[in-house]
């Protein structure tokens, strides 16, 4: 039975997120006026610099005091405040269907996305969504209305994760689109070759986007709590089973798991990209609150 809106965004999560805000750490390009810094100059109270008066400039922007001192007309220029464009990119490959009890990684990713979307719309910014699976790309453009939020959430719950991982191709396509700069939140379980995905994310980062990577983990996958023969069904490879004596594998698996996660941590630190880890059995709002508090603590770059 597919989840409802109340399932992925319950009232208590809304209540918890009500007083939080997601501020951009970099300058962003928004179409609307908002609280986030922009590279563009425009209407604001934040003075930026003086320029020589050109015909057509508004007379009210002339700095009379500076003009009198230099015997030329100077016009005051202000940094424009704009709204934040937040793009949610979700990994919807079949590996995200792995469950530890009632919680799959997909459901947790959707909950995280829903909370973020609610937060963004709540503070008047724009939210967009992109769910990536093999041969399918579920996209919702940017929007800031409550109706848009519902649309985004409906899109999330009406699709299920499936197929092999195709994240690299989709991210490459996203780079080619040259979206306006904003916050790009990538939610995935990282169960693929890290290097190509990291390369594409780095390109997005260099385009001026603030990239936040959310690693959704499953505690069983991390602990590998087996001591007998187990038939592992690979969710991405058309349910191809792999039978193995886990006693011999436990230590090696743990080493490899740590190695993959370390690669991501090292990469994110090198790129100054936030890497947030969230476990599928934990509450999405709690995980998000922890991250936002951290983010507010370190402040703007």
């Amino acid at each position, binding site marked *: 039975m597919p989840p409802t809106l109340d399932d992925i965004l319950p009232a208590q999560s809304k209540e918890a997120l009500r007083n939080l805000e997601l501020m951009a750490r970099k300058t962003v390009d928004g179409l609307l006026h908002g609280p986030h810094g922009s590279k563009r100059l425009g209407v604001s109270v934040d003075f930026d610099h003086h320029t020589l008066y050109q015909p057509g400039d508004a007379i009210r922007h002339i700095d009379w005091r500076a003009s009198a001192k230099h015997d030329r007309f100077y016009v005051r220029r202000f940094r424009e405040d704009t709204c934040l464009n937040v793009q949610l990119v979700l990994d919807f490959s079949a590996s995200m*269907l792995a469950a530890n009890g009632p919680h799959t990684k997909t459901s947790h990713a959707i909950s995280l996305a829903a909370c973020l979307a609610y937060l963004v719309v709540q503070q008047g910014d724009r939210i967009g969504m992109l769910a990536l699976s093999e041969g399918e790309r579920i996209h919702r453009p940017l929007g800031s209305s409550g109706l848009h939020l519902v649309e985004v959430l409906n899109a999330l719950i009406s699709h299920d994760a499936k197929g092999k991982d195709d994240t690299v191709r989709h991210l490459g396509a996203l780079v080619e689109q040259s979206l306006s700069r904003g916050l790009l939140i990538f939610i995935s379980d990282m169960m693929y070759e890290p290097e190509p995905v990291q390369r594409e994310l780095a390109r997005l980062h260099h385009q001026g986007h603030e990239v936040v990577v959310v690693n959704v983990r499953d505690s069983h996958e991390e602990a590998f709590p087996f001591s007998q*023969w187990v038939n*592992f069904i690979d*969710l991405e490879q058309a349910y191809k089973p792999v*039978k193995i*004596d886990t006693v011999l*594998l436990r230590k090696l698996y743990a080493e490899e798991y740590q190695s993959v996660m370390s690669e991501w941590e090292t990469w994110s630190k090198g790129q100054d990209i936030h890497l947030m880890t969230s476990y599928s059995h934990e509450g999405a709002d709690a995980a998000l609150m922890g991250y936002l508090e951290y983010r507010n603590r370190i402040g703007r770059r």
Partner: protein
Amino acid sequence: MSWSASSVLWYVPLSLLPVIIYYWMRRHPVTYRWGAQYVLNRALLKLKRKIINEHVILLALRVLIPLMLILGFARLVMHEHRERQIVHSGVHRVIILDASYSMLTGNTGQTRWDVALQALEQLMSSWGRGESWSLYVMDDEPGWLVEYAVIGKSEEHAEKLRALKTCESPASLVKAILETRERFVFKDIDLFLLADDQALTWKGLADATAGGAPRNTYWLNPPIPSHANTAITQVEASCERSLKGHPTRIFVKVKHFSERARDVVIEFLQDGEVVGKKTVSLHPGLEGETFFDMRFESSGSHYAAARLSADVLRYDDMHTAGLEVEDELNVLLLQDEDSKPHETSWKILVQLDLLQDVLEIKPAHLVFSLQQGACTPENFVDQDVVLIEGSRTLEDGLAALLSDFVKRGGGLVLVAGLGVDKQTWNSVLGTAGLLPAELGEEPVWDFNPSTREYKRPGYHGFGDAGFRAFATHEAGRIGEAQFFHWFDLVYDEDRTDPRDILIRFDDHRPLLMRKKVQLGRVLLLASGLNGLDNTLPVRETYLPFLYRLFREAAAGKIYPRTLKTGEPVRYRIPSPEGLDALALQFEGETPIPLSTTRTGAEETGVYPRGMKRSGMGKLISVLGNSVRHTWFGVQGPRLDSDLTPVDSALLQKWIEKWNVTEVKDGAELTRALLAGRGGRETYPYFLIAALLLMLVELAYQKRFTRAAI
């Protein structure tokens, strides 16, 4: 090379259990929908090249662990190390040990018992740890001392062996073998018999050997120089309560257990000092008797012993008897007030002071009324003997007083003279339980002395040692006395102990009878003690007769000082008020504190278990600064003295039937065992190997396992 417990090898296929479990688990895996396949594939890529090897090594370790354990418990024995230890293919060992006194026979200072214990110790020290054994001891309570025990620390077993002691018991090897047959699978055990060749021990051998034989039988039978043994079987004092300065006869019985006659020299010991020797010629298998008169010059506790010169069995060469010597005896005479002069010869004798001067018998209250109410309990205090002549005023109240006096150890002498009314005696004294026999017919009194009928005492049937001196005329010729008046004493022959008929007439009818009433005793004389009833008072035997009569009656004042084995030791404490402590010490043992019981004014120390073996003991009374010793002797029945060996033909038949290995000492037994199935145990190596493999398996598994990430 052999296996001590080869049956355990049947479990070898169990060592394949890990392989079976492995394949079963492999065929029945747990299915899991797995999302982290990327990480799993990376791990598998690294593992793949060595996973087959790892599986093989781990499985091999898991198979080897139970295999080593099984081989360890199967106990491989390497025979190239015969000199180290003795094992017996895992069979159960049963040891039957003869702990009777006959094992104390021996040669050059070492007894068979010493040899048996040494052999047993050697045998057990040669067994490997974990081997099982049982020990059956043939002592006074034959049974299993050790049952299905496993050899552990050698000190524990040495302790058990040290605690073993011999005792006087009729050991039955046959019973032991039958019990072993019942308890164990007889054909699978190794049987070790540590027993002598005494015929008594082997009685019924044919019954025991009727069934199958054990797997191996070893018989330790140390040789002894001779089987001819002589034993003192009894030492008996003529009376345990004697008078100072008067001779006390000690009767000794000695038995010779041999097929040839022999002269034996008996030494008599008075309070530990040799006072005389006698030589007795003994016929084969017969018991001889001799006596020796001892004279004790001081009052108090004494002991007399008889000892033989050392022979093959030392323990039965001596017996001891305890005695109490008194300064004087107190006698109370009760007579009818109106008794006629001819009925009171006793009175005349007393007036002549004969009793005081010659016998140290102190008469009190020479004439006392038997009238009702004239006697009180206080009259009997300090009296040893009460003598009654006449009966015309005898009544129940006095009988009750007399009964109480006797029960507390007093002596009552009833003299059935002419003046006695037999109806009164039979009813009053009989009802009070004081008559050894009923007074029956009496001859019609013939006033003409020339035609008067008479009877004489006989010289046979002296049941008690106290009067046996009359049989040999040493105390005068009692048979020459004529008895003109007597009562026929009617007694139940089935219930009366013949030893209680102390003197008989020549027609075998009783003249003097005894009845023991609790502590005291009643003596009934069938005639009077005066010149009218008989001529005894004018014979030279009259005073010896009186002396023995009163001595015997007064003997009940003390508890027996010569006891049988197992008979309770009792001691009447003379002055309980001043007693600080009372203990019992048997020779060679530590003193045992005695509990006391009080009955009225009397206090008695009791050791109810008695002594288990023959020997001498003493009761130690501590009264302030002084210590008093009261000696007693314990005389066992000499059950083990007959060393006659078992019939050699029968024995040989058994040896051949059971294929018995007969050895004479521990060294020979060890050699015989080593010649059989000797070798060295290897199970410790297998167990160590199993332990090491477990550790390796644990470490190997640890390589692939991590508790938590």
